[in-house]
């Protein structure tokens, strides 16, 4: 556990989460959610949980983002709130 890296990454996590739910453009929100997942994977690898970090990097930052963007391509990209 590296103290400074941990605090920095957790701060970025909170910033990414707030940005992902408050931005109006849905494509930007999804890309920020992908960055959130990648930072989360880094935090988990740094907490010595290599398997879970690997899975989150592959599933959360990869497949989930692709599914969200494919959904946006079939619906609309603007949000009212």
């Amino acid at each position, binding site marked *: 556990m590296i103290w400074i890296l941990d605090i920095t990454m957790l701060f970025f996590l*909170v910033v990414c*989460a707030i940005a992902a739910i408050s931005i109006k453009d849905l494509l930007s929100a999804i890309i920020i959610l992908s960055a959130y997942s990648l930072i989360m994977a880094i935090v988990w690898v740094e*907490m010595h949980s290599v398997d879970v970090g690997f899975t989150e990097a592959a599933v959360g930052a990869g*497949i*989930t983002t692709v*599914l969200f963007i494919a*959904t946006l391509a079939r619906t609309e990209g603007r949000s009212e*709130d």
Partner: protein
Amino acid sequence: MSGMIDIVYAEYNYWIYVTLMMIGFYAMIAKKNLIKKVIGANIFQTAIFLFYISLADVTGGTAPIIVGHGGEHAEHAADVIYTNPVPHCLILTAIVVAVSTTAVALALIIRIYNEYGSLEEDVILAARRKLQPEFSEHARQKGVAEVSEQ
């Protein structure tokens, strides 16, 4: 003062996970866009996973892969501390279930958009009331009757 710093150092991961959980929970309740609700659900899930993984961490520990199996570094094998592997296994299961639920939710959102032409919750509810007025009136009267009974 140093006692305060000790408390912050010992518990900051819990505070971060509670903050993330609050953000995701708020998005699930208050946002009207359906995709925003699914994003909030994802943030909620990862916050709970972060809680489990930080419970499993041990200071000075290493990843739960046995050192010294097969002869390499076998002399260090005795004094290695491993982190707790049980929450890792639980969360590995939960992440893959999370992507399954997200996929089903997105498929339902696509069907709803094909039916109603919108992703906003209030627009969908208004369109639903317009499409089925008798159903909506019946439900409203039933609700009023239930409230007046109490």
